[in-house]
């Protein structure tokens, strides 16, 4: 029984610099890196030492507290450095890419004859497991749990997000193979949620063995958390697994070829890049090859991911494990004079969800927004603004307050099990008091994980 969901709440932030639908194959990067911080809460245990050779698809570290989950190298090469931060925490594992990419040889795997447990085993062993994330808590899925359903979003509604219809066009086989494999992981349904506003590509339309739902609305309609909430909400004690559509194709590629080929099409977007378009590259790739010579100004911020939830990286940093885009926007580290660009200015350059700025008059104008906080952090004063961009039957402000005050009962009652930090990204964007809401929600989730899981 597929569902159609219509959302009234939400916000599409209109930014300059959407990627043109042209794809370039980017050359193999010089280095790739895997960042343990991409897998929240995971403590890596290295199995390869610095200077040793690594092969694509072979483990470089595993989860210290859950050793069955292995993290593999996306490429063949040499382990260059294990970059450590405070308390010797591993920040990044950098691998020099060898010139010859001899992918681990393999042969097609027959999914149909395998049981769910066998597939799980294989995915854990071959480094595919980290693609599977779980709700609640929004971390890499715990393989010992049985999910009640698996959710895949067929589109990304975040600002300047890549168009999955374009990205996965012509990859029907891989995507379907991936779906076939993961649908064996659950007794429940696999939900594929399509964008109601645009016709879906054949890859999604033709997908078999899944429940196809439609969702209409502004961002965060494409967030899998929103979709779960409206289609099959999570109650306490239940688990749902989620995957990114492109990662399903990577999983499918593995089962079709027997090789781990973590290639991904990413969008290079943002107001500060020349000719924004799509690139085919590899997970963890050094972005310098992609962004080199494309900046239109000097003082920019390079983000792996989208502007709402991505990570700040250097111009020669590495693409995140889950990210499908690189966004480049201007840094906003300048003072802004009150009457021109500050709090008393006319504000035609500001995009606001409130009517305190003339954004609502500007029709479909696209904006070039910088990273300035546009104010200072204050106590929670304004009420009712978070609710406008939070399409859940959850009281966002009260939940955030419960998270800030470490109120476990409050968080449980108010729906912490249904949300991930990314669901609050728009709340964080519109917050008048400039509170880092995603961070507060993450802290709340950490507390719940340590106390209640």
């Amino acid at each position: 029984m597929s569902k159609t969901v219509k959302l009234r709440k939400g916000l599409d932030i209109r930014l300059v610099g959407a990627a043109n639908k042209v794809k370039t194959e980017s050359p193999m990067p010089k280095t790739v890196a895997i960042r343990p911080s991409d897998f929240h809460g995971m403590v890596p245990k290295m199995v390869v030492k610095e200077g040793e050779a690594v092969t694509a698809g072979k483990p470089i570290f595993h989860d210290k507290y859950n050793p069955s989950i292995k993290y593999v190298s996306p490429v063949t090469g040499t382990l260059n450095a294990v970059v450590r931060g405070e308390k010797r925490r591993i920040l990044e594992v950098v691998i020099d890419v060898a010139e010859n990419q001899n992918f681990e040889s393999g042969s097609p795997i027959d999914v149909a004859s395998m049981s769910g447990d066998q597939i799980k085993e294989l995915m854990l062993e071959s480094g595919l497991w980290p693609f599977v994330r779980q709700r609640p808590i929004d971390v890499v899925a715990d393989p010992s749990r049985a999910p009640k359903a698996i959710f895949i979003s067929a589109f990304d509604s975040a600002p300047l997000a890549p168009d999955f219809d374009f990205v996965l066009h012509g990859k029907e086989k891989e995507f379907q193979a991936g779906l076939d494999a993961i649908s064996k992981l659950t007794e429940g349904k696999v939900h594929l949620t399509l964008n109601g506003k645009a016709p879906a590509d054949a890859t999604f339309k033709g997908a078999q063995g899944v429940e196809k739902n439609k969702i209409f609305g502004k961002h965060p309609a494409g967030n899998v958390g929103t979709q779960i909430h409206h289609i099959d909400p999570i109650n306490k004690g239940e688990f749902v697994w989620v995957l990114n559509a492109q990662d399903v194709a990577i999983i499918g590629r593995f089962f079709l070829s027997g090789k781990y080929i973590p290639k991904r099409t990413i969008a290079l977007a943002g107001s500060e890049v020349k000719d924004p378009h799509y690139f085919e590259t590899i997970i963890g790739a050094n972005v310098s090859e992609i962004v080199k010579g494309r900046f239109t100004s000097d003082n920019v911020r390079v983000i792996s991911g989208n502007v709402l939830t991505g990570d700040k990286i250097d111009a020669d940093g590495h693409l995140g494990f889950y990210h499908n885009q690189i966004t480049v926007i201007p840094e906003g580290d300048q003072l802004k004079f009150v009457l021109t660009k500050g709090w008393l200015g006319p504000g035609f350059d500001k995009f606001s969800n409130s009517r305190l700025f003339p954004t609502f008059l500007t029709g479909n104008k696209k904006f070039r927004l910088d990273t300035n906080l546009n104010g200072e952090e204050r106590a929670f004063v304004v009420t009712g603004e978070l609710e406008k961009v939070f399409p859940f039957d959850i009281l966002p402000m009260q939940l955030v307050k419960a998270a800030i005050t470490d109120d476990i009962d409050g968080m449980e009652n108010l729906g912490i099990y249904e949300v991930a930090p990314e669901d609050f990204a728009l709340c964080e964007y519109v917050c008048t008091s400039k509170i880092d809401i995603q961070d507060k929600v993450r802290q709340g989730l950490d507390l719940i994980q340590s106390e209640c899981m």
Partner: protein
Amino acid sequence: MEPKFAKGGKLEKWNPFFESFSTLAFTPSHTTKKGAHIRDGVDLKRTMITVIFAMVPALLFGIFNAGHWDLAVELGNRDLPFWADQGEKIYRGALIVLPMIIVSYGVGLGVEFIFAMKRGHALHEGFLVSGMLIPLIMPPDVPLWMVAVATIFAVVIGKEIFGGTGMNIVNIALTARAFLFFAYPTSMSGDKVWMNGLGDKLASGAEMDGFSGATALGDAASFISDKPVFENLDSFTAQYSLWDLMMGTIPGSIGETSFIAIMIGAAILIFTGVGSLRIIASFFAGGYLMGFIFNLVGGNPYFEMGPEFHLMMGGFAFGAVFMATDPVTASQTATGKIIYGLFGGIIAILIRVVNPAYPEGVMLSILFMNVMAPIIDHYVIQANVKRRLKRVKTA
């Protein structure tokens, strides 16, 4: 200049002072560190200044109105044409109102700075609104030192002991007014304080025959006392027509008299989303409902007065638009806001009509609802929790 104020600098202690003023002139160069990399243009400064803009029509009319009654007292002519002698009236009004604004801001910000420096944070914007509200809800004849004392009381006891902007339980400006109302009742109520100079003139023994300095509310409240000022409702409405109440050409607290000026402010607040339409609309609805119920009961002229009079008399509209909507002290949930507003309006009229000792029920009603707001929110939140728990059972 900045290094001197930075940590370890010579003037470190004065950093809150420096920060407050520098951020007034320039939005700081702070960039996003965690989470979303871009942020909405809106900040608390812009929100608060919008509230102040919304109060400007009421303020300007208040200045003119105060000047008008000042001149009327001086000439001993209560029937002085309202729109004549504009220059003179604006000048007189400004002399009454501007010092109150200066005292309110000066004293209030002074106290805030002491606390800000003690706590090491910049001044928060909340008082920018409170500082304007306080003069607007004072009678024109109130002594300046009382404004100062009330402001200190409100900022310290009403706000800072709870932790500052965003932490207070009851509305700051109403705390100031309530403090004066109970501490110095003769300066805050009665029939001598609503026109500047009237008290002094009477005290000096001047003959002021037929010169009443009472407000419409005071006169209306006398209906249920032993000595009604008016014989019946008709003679009351002859003195205070609906049009007068709407325009605000009557004595009263500085900002509260003109319904039209307040409604311009309400339009600004509602349009920009700074003031909650839910609260404003339900507050008026509650007041109308209660006025209507009294109408049905009947029995004395005050009960029989049309509910529309109640909405325009006294501080009802001002309270509904500028006081009840204070997001910190109002209910925070959408449903809670409606309940909060509705009861605020009902109780305001209830106090006003039934209890002649407190002609101005709006102040007490809003303060009461401020205290009740967390309870309302609690039940609204519990309803949400229960609804979500039910999902488990049906599934």
